[in-house]
């Protein structure tokens, strides 16, 4: 759970700050600041940026722990990765994973948030309880659902089998497996979305509703013309937080199915792990990582584009 929101905030602030800092620099420049920030910059550069560059370098080699020696092969590795069928399957799964994961989490979580915002008896308790899936480690989510999906002893398998009247091995079904894992993801992320929506609705000034009431608006109109326009903020933040969480997730898939059956639930993070730590093809794994980076980068640009209007508005 590492919400990278600040990036977006910073983006909003930089323009102002930049101008201010530029002029103030000429008046007074205080170098003591370097002392304070040096440790943070050092640790981030050492453990995030340096590995990134190592990864770029490795991706142009054919390094493998099975064959001694590292050879520079240019774009050969990339070509090999792109032609690889498993890579294409996991890319497809990753795209499904992120698109449906984000949409479903936002939809279900947003619905729950709006529902809780009507404020009935016990809604406070529910909104505290709802934190649980988001609070607990990923691995607990994976383990508890794996148990429910267990083909012989799991409670969900049992219910579905007694409804369908035949044996269905849930996590071994190639068509179902990714969707079953998506349920876990949504279970884990919907609470986040619902809290964002709930706090977004609660932050709407009461005066707006009162004014609308004076003007004779009914509750549908109030919802349509006051609440919905105020939901754009939780929507953007939710999309960013949730999709970046999904991009970073490895645990749910790995603990439940390890990408199987065959590669039908393989997503890029698990594929990278498999390449690097099972097949020992480090060069290929690095190239896959770089392609994953490009995927994420284009996704970020897409967000910038899609949300450009809201962006400027805020």
């Amino acid at each position: 759970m590492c919400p990278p929101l600040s990036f977006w905030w910073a983006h909003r602030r930089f323009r102002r700050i930049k101008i201010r800092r530029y002029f103030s620099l000429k008046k007074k420049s205080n170098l003591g600041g370097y002392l304070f920030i040096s440790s943070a910059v050092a640790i981030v550069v050492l453990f995030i940026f340096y590995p990134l560059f190592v990864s770029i370098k490795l991706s142009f080699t054919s390094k493998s722990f099975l064959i001694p020696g590292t050879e520079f092969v240019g774009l050969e590795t990339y070509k090999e990765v792109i032609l690889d069928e498993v890579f294409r399957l996991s890319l497809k799964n990753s795209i499904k994973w992120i698109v449906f994961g984000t949409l479903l989490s936002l939809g279900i979580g947003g619905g729950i948030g709006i529902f809780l915002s009507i404020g009935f008896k016990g809604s406070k308790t529910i909104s505290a309880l709802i934190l649980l899936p988001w609070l607990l480690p990923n691995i607990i989510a994976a383990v508890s659902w794996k148990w429910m999906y267990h083909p012989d002893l799991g409670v969900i398998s049992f219910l579905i089998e007694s409804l369908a009247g035949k044996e269905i091995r849930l996590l071994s079904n190639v068509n179902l497996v990714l969707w079953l894992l998506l349920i876990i993801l949504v279970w884990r992320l919907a609470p986040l979305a619902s809290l964002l929506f709930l706090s977004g609705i609660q932050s709407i000034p009461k005066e707006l509703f009162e004014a609308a009431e004076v003007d004779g608006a009914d509750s549908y109109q109030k919802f349509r013309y006051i609440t919905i326009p105020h939901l754009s903020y939780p929507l953007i933040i939710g999309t960013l937080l949730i999709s970046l969480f999904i991009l970073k997730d490895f645990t749910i898939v790995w603990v439940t199915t390890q990408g199987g059956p065959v590669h039908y639930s393989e997503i890029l993070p698990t594929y990278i792990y498999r390449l690097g730590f099972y097949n020992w093809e480090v060069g290929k794994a690095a190239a896959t990582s770089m392609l994953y980076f490009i995927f994420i980068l284009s996704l970020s640009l897409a967000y910038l584009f899609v949300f450009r209007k809201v962006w400027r508005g805020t």
Partner: protein
Amino acid sequence: MVKKRLKKGSFIQRVMIAVIAAVICGFILFPIAWLLITSFKSSAEVFRIPPTFWPHEFTFEPYIKTWQGKHLGGASPWGIFVLNSFKVSLPATFLTTLISSLAGYGFARFKFPGWVILLMIILISQMFPGPALLIPISELISAMGLYNTHLALILLYTSFAVPFTTWLSIGNFRSIPEELEYAAMVDGCSRIGSFFRIALPLSRIGLITTAIFAFLMSWSEYPFALILLERNELKTVPVGLGDYVQEFNIAFNEVGAATIVLAIPIFVLFLLAQKYFMKGILGGALKE
């Protein structure tokens, strides 16, 4: 306003609300509740084919068995795993809090060339997803000779948490009036002195939020602990749990017990510091 109208709302409306609330609670809580219930079942009952809902025989046997660790050679591994998790999480929490408050203070109070670029470097690093860095980080850790050490995880978790917590603490220090520090400095306090004596105590709520965030992150982290720790006596709880599920995936009452062990510190933290939690776990996404 809305509340009042609902209290007057019709019977059907209230029933509908109750039903929807029950469905939500069911969806959210059932998986955890089921695991908790399972963890009190005896081994024979776990294997019963139509699953029993409530344990016929309420037993602590899975907890005892898990703790003794018979299946893992009887060396009581979970005690060691829990200890390891604390050995990693607590220093990582401390380091994160220290480094990010130093950096936050630096960014909030000083103006220096490269301010924007350095902040950008720190913030942008959150965009890189962990799993894509698995390979180069494991190479780096091996090259540093830190493979199979807890120090590696402490440093890594710190570097993963620092970008976000730095950003939190910039906001914290900005909200503390600088005049307080000027007053102290006029009275002969140094910059560092005023940081430790004035700014840090005043921002303690922010510090708690940072610490909670860092602790939760390092307590729950799985992939890097999985690749960097190979020896059994060094593993953290998530790794132990992952191995357990994949190797002995039938004894789910014991797995449940182990899962509850992993969850307990989080519950305790939640009860102790509830009001700081929202900010910590929602990542400051709430408007203030």
